[in-house]
């Protein structure tokens, strides 16, 4: 006994410290190195090496006072070494060397710098990864890889794509950035209104992929949610004048606060109505509310702020019965006017049904079904089934539940619909 277990404990503690540093520093390091070298693969490799070295050296030498600065220095030195070996990059090496001397010994970090003393380049990286000239699936993959350090295999698993396919997608996106010369920069203020929505859409997609659990294993999905929240937080901090960034952050936090209550012990989905509200994370709801208020103070409403306001209404209700449905219906009306989205119309129908009764909701739904935009979307027949059930039209409800169950993708959603189906069938005779 004696030393071995103590050393093992120290290693595992350091492992946790490195894991934390990874979450906080990975994106900063890759963003700074891409800025300096223009070489995405080099940046990723050197960041990876720095964390590998930390895992080896920190248990032996102790955790440095400023882990971020240590990692950045190791990664940058690695980049200089690699570039020296290839003579064509002489100019870049000089640039890096200048940067290194500027960093060492400085007690006055530049504005926006963290403890690594390097200006935060992550905003450039976010805007480049989410450039509209890249396909949405490429934006999402590239953002997760370069900004959060998720491995190609992990991203593949999260999006149910083979690792080789995901690797090809990433390579193709990086080639396009280089070959078509997508600039590595934050767009000028005049272009922000046009470019920010594309970034927010990519982050929201990552979050939803984690939250909606269309398939796949739980751990990586929860992790996707956390990464999406962390990135949106960075974006909201670095773009303080963009209320939609704060709005999206608030929206994600309101949703995530309900995560524990969404699925019961058997892994079945629990509707908002039936959730155990004591399991909602009130601290997180409080943070979400502060972000939403800060966003709304900007007086420039947008779709994420409105969606967050709706999520906030649900979060504020101590019981399902106490929900302010008329307000939610009004918010959905705003949202529908703004987006013209049929999914929003579907949600509005639900809110109207709660305010004015299921018959009113059904009327809105019929109009939506006639439009045909949501054909094949399981929530359309599922919603109709719910309205019919509440109207006591059990036979029609049963066939609508059947229709919905056939369209629903995964376990929990399908199990829920089948349970309701059994319920209306038993009342039907």
């Amino acid at each position, binding site marked *: 006994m004696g030393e071995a277990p103590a050393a093992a404990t120290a290693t595992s503690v350091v492992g946790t410290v490195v894991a934390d540093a990874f979450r906080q520093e990975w994106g900063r390091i890759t963003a700074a190195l891409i800025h300096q070298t223009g070489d995405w693969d080099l940046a990723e490799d050197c960041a990876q090496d720095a964390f590998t070295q930390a895992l080896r050296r920190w248990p032996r030498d102790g955790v440095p006072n400023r882990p971020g600065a240590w990692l950045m220095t190791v990664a940058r030195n690695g980049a200089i070494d690699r570039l020296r070996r290839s003579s064509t990059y002489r100019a870049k090496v000089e640039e890096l060397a200048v940067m290194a001397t500027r960093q060492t010994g400085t007690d006055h970090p530049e504005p926006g710098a963290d403890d690594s003393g390097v200006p935060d380049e992550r905003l450039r990286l976010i805007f480049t990864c989410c*450039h*509209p*000239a*890249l*396909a949405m699936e*490429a934006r999402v993959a590239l953002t997760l890889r370069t900004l959060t350090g998720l491995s190609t295999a992990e991203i593949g698993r999260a999006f149910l794509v083979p690792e080789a396919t995901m690797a090809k997608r990433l390579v*193709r996106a990086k*080639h*396009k950035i280089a*070959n*078509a*010369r*997508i*600039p590595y920069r934050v*767009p000028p203020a005049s*272009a922000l209104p*046009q470019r920010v929505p594309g970034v927010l859409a990519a982050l929201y997609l990552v979050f939803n992929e984690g939250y909606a659990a269309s398939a796949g294993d739980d751990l990586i999905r929860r992790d996707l949610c956390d990464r999406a929240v962390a990135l949106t937080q960075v974006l909201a901090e670095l773009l303080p004048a963009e209320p939609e960034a704060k709005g999206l952050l608030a929206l994600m936090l309101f949703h995530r606060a309900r995560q524990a209550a969404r699925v019961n012990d058997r892994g079945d989905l629990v509707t908002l109505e039936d959730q155990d509200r004591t399991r909602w994370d009130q601290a997180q709801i409080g943070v979400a509310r502060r972000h939403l208020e800060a966003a709304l103070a900007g007086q420039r409403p947008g779709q994420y702020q409105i969606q967050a306001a709706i999520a906030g209404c649900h979060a504020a209700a101590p019981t399902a019965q106490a929900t302010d449905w008329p307000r939610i219906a009004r918010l959905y009306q705003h949202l529908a006017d703004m987006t013209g989205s049929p999914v929003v119309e579907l949600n509005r129908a639900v809110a109207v049904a709660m305010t004015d009764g299921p018959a009113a909701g059904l009327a809105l739904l019929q109009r939506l079904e006639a439009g045909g935009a949501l054909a094949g979307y399981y929530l359309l027949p599922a919603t109709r089934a719910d309205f019919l059930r509440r109207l006591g039209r059990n036979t029609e409800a049963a066939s609508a539940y059947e229709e919905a169950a056939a369209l629903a993708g995964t376990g929990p959603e399908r199990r829920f619909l089948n349970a309701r189906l059994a319920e209306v069938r038993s009342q039907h005779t």
Partner: protein
Amino acid sequence: MRYMLIHTADPDVAAEWDEDENWASFSSWVEETVRSGVSLQGSRLRPTADATTVKIRDGELIITDGPYAETKEQVAGYDVLECASLDEAVQWAGRHPHSWLGSIEVRALPDSAPAVPLPAPGEGKIRYMMLVCTDPAVDPREFARVEPVDPWVAETNGRGVRLYGSELEPPGSARTVRVRDSRTIVTDGPFAETKEQIAGFDVLECADLDEAIEVARRHPMARLGILEVRPFWPFGED
């Protein structure tokens, strides 16, 4: 008369050919056309994976990854030739390696388009081919209302962003040249039977893709057609 040769590559056919052989044919083609005074300008283009399309619908700018149309044969380069006749241009096309690697569409330029050889690239600049294409989703009658392109041309020429460009005679008057098993096959019409068709082109020189998108979005056809922006692929670059 001036003619645009639109080179396309068919990935299946191209895979069967020896690269050194193609390179030799290509070099001698360029040498000969330059010596004969036929060649005015031309370039290889980056693959369609590096293409971006730009259009404006209902006042909203829509930027998309990829080419103007999904075709089996993909536009891979172009040349502008000064020839006595369409037949002469077709003959030159039949000797270019792309006639056996894919196809070459020969399209006449209207008489009004002056011929300009391209100067050496500017420091730190990148060249793009902007293909001005029709969108089948737009009612052709709308084209009667397209704004004149002259102010856009004058402004972009003035800033040195546009180096050259022209409308093309309608695709119906095009010839497409393919060489298969040493036989030259010339067909009427464009290289692909897509509903989208190339109606013109502009060669742009910009700092980066954002500038090219900015230039493209102000082209009058952005509202009615599709603008594909594709980087030049200079020889010697990976």
